[in-house]
């Protein structure tokens, strides 16, 4: 009994002495904030912030080399808790955003100019004449955006258009960068009315290529409040301020302008259907 106590104590003494020395030799100045911040970050390591992972971002935030709201995925709540850790006031960033596809030309509404046979990837398809859609601006429908989404928020519809689930989308920007046609943009979820076309072609050409493209008829410009919609190179573009009222959607003869509910209170069945697709 006594021997045991003595032996263990001695061993512990030696070991702890050694470890203390080592600990001093290896003292890595770890800012406790880094750990705390990392805990507050989503931990998906998605790279949406442009850094290799959440721990790297945490380090940078702690060192003051990145903003408290640098995580695009975490949004306001994460930014708020990080600012609390850092002891700085958080001004409250922009509104929560989601990605949206600015094209409504699916297999039924948009025409194709050839039969594409190749790599099932939009960027690869775009190498051949920019893609098989007759509309040079339209969605190619091969799902590259769905493939790069780290959150499973993008699904391809049966008619070959990506459908983004705003409740899963974290606005990480990956799909925006991946789309070779550059038709995915981040929009505030609060905005309801969207002009779902990216074609700068003239009206006659658009009509030939797609039954839901913007033909630049300017009806929406007249209907909407002053400054809400502007015609830019044959395409109606929403300026964001002021908001476009729902009524504008009704005047669009091509059904290009639509009311899209991006609220998080999306109907349960839609979210469920999206999740189902993600799992299978």
């Amino acid at each position, binding site marked *: 009994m006594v021997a045991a106590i003595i032996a263990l104590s001695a061993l512990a003494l030696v070991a702890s002495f050694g470890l203390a020395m080592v600990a001093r030799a290896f003292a890595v100045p770890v800012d406790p904030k880094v750990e705390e911040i990392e805990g507050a970050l989503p931990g998906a390591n998605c790279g949406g912030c442009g850094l290799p992972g959440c721990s790297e971002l945490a380090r940078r935030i702690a060192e003051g080399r990145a903003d408290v709201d640098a995580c695009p995925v975490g949004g306001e709540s994460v930014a708020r808790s990080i600012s609390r850790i850092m002891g700085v006031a958080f001004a409250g960033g922009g509104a929560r955003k989601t990605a949206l596809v600015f094209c409504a030309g699916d297999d039924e509404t948009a025409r194709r*100019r*050839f039969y594409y*046979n*190749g*790599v*099932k*990837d939009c*960027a*690869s398809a775009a*190498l*051949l*004449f*920019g893609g*098989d859609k007759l509309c*040079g601006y339209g969605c190619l429908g091969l799902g590259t955006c769905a493939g790069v989404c780290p959150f499973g928020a993008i699904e391809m519809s049966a008619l070959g258009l990506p459908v983004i689930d705003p409740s899963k989308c974290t606005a990480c920007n990956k799909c925006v960068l991946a789309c070779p046609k550059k038709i995915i943009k981040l929009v505030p979820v609060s905005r309801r009315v969207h002009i779902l076309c990216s074609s700068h072609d003239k009206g006659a050409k658009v009509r030939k290529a797609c039954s839901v493209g913007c033909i630049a008829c300017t009806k929406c410009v007249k209907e909407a409040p002053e400054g809400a919609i502007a015609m830019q190179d044959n395409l109606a573009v929403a300026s964001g301020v002021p908001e476009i009222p729902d009524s504008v959607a009704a005047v669009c003869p091509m059904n290009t302008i639509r009311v899209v509910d991006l609220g998080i209170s999306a109907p349960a069945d839609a979210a469920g259907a999206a999740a189902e697709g993600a799992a299978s």
Partner: protein
Amino acid sequence: MKSGTFFGGVHPRYEKDLAGGRPIETMPLPARLVVPFAQNLGAAPKPVVKKGDEVKRGQLIAEPQGFVSVPLHAPTSGVVQAIDVFPHPVGADLPAVVIVPDGKDEWAPGLNVERDAGDLGADALRGVIRDAGLVGMGGAAFPTHVKLSPPKDKPIDVLVLNGAECEPYLTADHRLMAERPAEIVEGASWFAKALGVENVIVAVEKNKPDAIAAMRPAAEARGYAVRALDVVYPQGAERQLIFALTGRRVPAGGLPMDVGVLVQNVGTCYAAFEAVRRNRPLTERVVCVTGRGVANPKNVLARIGTTFGDAIAFCGGLREDAGKIIGGGPMMGVAQYSLDAPVTKGTSGIVVLTRREAVQYAGDPCIRCGRCLRACPMLLNPSVLSVYAERLRFDETAAHHVLDCIECGCCAYVCPSRRPMVHHFRRAKAEIRKKQARAV
């Protein structure tokens, strides 16, 4: 390694009989000509005409931008109807000038006159060739005068006339060699003179005996050698051709001039003859219109800017089951979606395949059979490359030398999984180049 061949390669069905026996026919002027500006590798020339202008044949319509660029000339006399975007056979929609011929086909003043070129020096020859808008007519469309201006530290000692025409179906070079051997050889002699090269080799695949027979006396008259090469694709690819003829290996990432060789297509030689001796800028070329999707396959002398539709119509039109229009040969050419695509300086052929003949890529998983490894003339590992490219791991494709791929298509040709290998590689190359550009 025995001379006359190289590593890898495939033996596709050549189908050269379709148009091989047909002499070159001169095609009448079509109702309109669509002349794209981008007809050479490097910078596209800048237009100097506008809508409504009248032009004469051979008149400058676009001027070169920088050294790696060549001027563009009106293919016939007529009126500029429009300048707009058209499908271009390289696989993109690009700006082009539309000329409506007036039917007179008048040359611009000073052109189309015989000249005694014997006293032209090397620099003058290069100037003439550049002003005539010459590019490599085998398909790559690299400006010829640039090739003729090697840096001082890389002297050229061998000039190779590439008459291999290893692409299946195509017979344009074949017919040109059979019918105009003397002109080709003379054109080559101007190149040889500009470079100061004595050793000139005419390389022809063995499946063109009449071309070899025609070229031999013409070449030997000037002391040039004619070499009959094994029939294996891609015998006409520069690196493979150089290795087969001289045993020299062009270094990876290097150019033929790194080993002292210059390769010129026989069509280019003919164009050089026209430019130097007749003072004619490049406004027409021999195009092989062939394939089972065309009623009467032919070799036609067509103006630059002739649309594929017009060329095919001259050859009897499309057959019912035509499914794929290819600008160039079936191994490396570009599939066209529209008959509005025009013949350019680099268009050696228009191949129309039936739906049944055209490959249907499936993109099944690679089963690692290794056939592509054996076929790859660059000794790459297409199997691994395509798997990495498929998973968008482009850094790994770079590490496995995807940039050395010559896109000859041998790997995809033999792939039992029908993987669109070349498509993968083109994507990977594009991504790597994008990344390199960003890094700079």
